[in-house]
């Protein structure tokens, strides 16, 4: 197992604004960390710095407590799965997986045993003599995983490995990768722009925006107690409602006269028709989206849109009257100037 530590990392390329500004991050050995954020937030750059493809402009990268800034990717010894899979097109599946072992000078017999073992584990043992071009996207993805895992390195880097798969395959592979991490003893550093991957797979999420770490916390914590309005808006689907305090009715005692932005997750807003219950607010239906198990209803309340959920059989027309009631115990407050969450 390998621990990863980044201290004061800055990175700028020859032209343009800095990509990373003062990144401090500690990944304990054996953990599964996801780096998540919108495109251009610097998450892939962090991975390239750890792999050794790029050098930081300032700051230090430590693996197991040793500074590795000057070490080549080979000396750092991480394995990596790429977004495009980057399989070697002229080699068949067997040789693709065997390649890192051959380069390392592992004996033929051991190579064969390890390639066949990992191929069986990933259920690609039937394709060993095929070339990558004869495989489907999902199979290529498994070959790429196999090539990384066959080395049994203690640090695996993933650069959006599932983003080229269709949704059902992505769901399947999410579970597979999580299992592989639990079976082995490697540290996984996983870059994604998909919040579902980050929420479902990782021990800790690192949310990034514009080269700055916004929050590092377990997924459940990031979801329940986002550090600021950016994190609150980025994680969760449908998006969290962020509205002025005047729009929704909040008991005066909860905010104590301060000016706040109210954040409330759509699943904490209950919507219904008919008589307005105690603590409910009246609004007009902007649009209703039946989801099968329930219905997402967007209401217009005092000029702002608030999305909430209703029972599956409540499917109002647009423009109809409806009410919304908040689960007050789960409402979040943010400082409108700093955008930070105000602890309650």
């Amino acid at each position, binding site marked *: 197992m390998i621990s990863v530590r980044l201290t004061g990392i800055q990175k700028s390329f020859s032209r343009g604004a800095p990509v990373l500004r003062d990144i401090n991050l500690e990944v304990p050995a054996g953990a599964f960390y996801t780096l998540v954020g919108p495109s251009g937030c610097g998450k892939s750059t962090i991975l390239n710095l750890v792999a050794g493809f790029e050098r930081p402009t300032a700051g230090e990268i430590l693996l197991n407590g040793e500074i590795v800034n000057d070490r080549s*990717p080979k000396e750092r010894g991480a394995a990596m799965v790429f977004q495009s899979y980057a399989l070697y097109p002229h080699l068949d599946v067997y040789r693709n997986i065997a390649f890192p072992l051959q380069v390392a000078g592992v004996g033929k017999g051991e190579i064969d045993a390890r390639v066949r073992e990992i191929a069986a584990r990933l259920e690609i043992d039937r394709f060993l003599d095929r070339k990558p071009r004869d495989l489907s996207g999902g199979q290529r993805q498994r070959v790429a995983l196999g090539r990384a895992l066959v080395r049994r390195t203690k640090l695996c880097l993933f650069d959006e490995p599932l983003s080229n798969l269709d949704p059902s395959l992505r769901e399947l592979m999410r579970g597979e990768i999580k299992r592989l991490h639990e079976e082995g003893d490697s540290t996984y550093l996983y870059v994604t722009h998909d919040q579902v991957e980050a929420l479902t797979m990782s021990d800790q999420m690192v949310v990034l925006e514009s080269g700055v770490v916004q929050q590092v916390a377990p997924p459940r914590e990031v979801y329940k107690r986002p550090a600021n309005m950016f994190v609150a808006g980025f994680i969760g689907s449908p998006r969290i409602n962020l509205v002025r305090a005047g729009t929704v009715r909040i008991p005066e005692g909860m905010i104590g006269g301060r000016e706040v932005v109210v954040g409330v997750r759509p699943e904490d807003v209950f919507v219904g028709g008919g008589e307005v219950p105690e603590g409910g607010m009246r609004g007009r239906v902007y649009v209703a989206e039946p989801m099968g198990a329930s219905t997402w209803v967007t209401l217009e309340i005092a000029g702002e849109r608030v999305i909430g959920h209703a029972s599956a059989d409540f499917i109002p027309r647009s423009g109809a009257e409806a009410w919304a009631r908040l689960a007050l115990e789960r409402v979040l407050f943010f400082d409108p100037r700093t955008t930070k969450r105000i602890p309650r």
Partner: protein
Amino acid sequence: MKRLGLALAVAVVVLFCAGPFLWQVLTSLRPEGDLTSLDFPRSLTLESYRSVLTGRPFARSVLNSFIVASATTVTSLFFGATAAFALAKLELRGRSFFLGMALLASMFPGVAVVSPLYLAVRALGLRDHLLGLVLPYTTFALPMAVWILTGFFRAIPDEIYRAAIIDGCSPFQAFRRIMLPLAAPGLGTTAILLFISSWNEFLYALALTSSARARTVPVAIGLFGGDHKEPWGEIAAASVIAMLPVILVALIFQRWIVSGITTSAEKR
């Protein structure tokens, strides 16, 4: 009807491109007295071929050309491929400057540099020597190789190179085991172009050789003419013979090009 039209159009194009060559083949087979007639010859003879190959040191010239063109191609391809890989995939300072210089060097007209080259080759004692042709030929072939191959190496995704590096390769191992096989179509294309341009080169060969010892095919054919008449039949026979190695080389490297096309396409 449509097919007939297409076939006709293809026939016209083929005839237009191959016409002069076919005419040359025909000329090489005409008997001596029939050379300048435009009719289809009444009889064919291999006399011109016999006299080119026995009456002149032409076989020697073909061998010279083959050695010079092969040596130039191999040298330029080796250094060209390593340089092009470095320019395309490694972080080097001033690589666009270097590429610009390579392009510039390959654009110099031969006439402009032939005299200094002559002096340099003479100073090295390589005049009328095959090595004295390979070196000057490399001066134009190498920049051309660098320029063309850089494009081919650039077309290989960066992630493939990075995958090789992360899999434990040194840059040179990544070059030899991954990048070079993937650049095979580029190597094939470049090899054909280099071989043909060295094979056909006339100016340097004329200036830098003085005897049959090092004379190459284009110069040898150019010097066929005597004081009183041009031996058209022999010239035709010689040029037909001179085409054969080029066709052979093109066929060999064409396989690389095709095999490369089928191994590429790493996505989808």
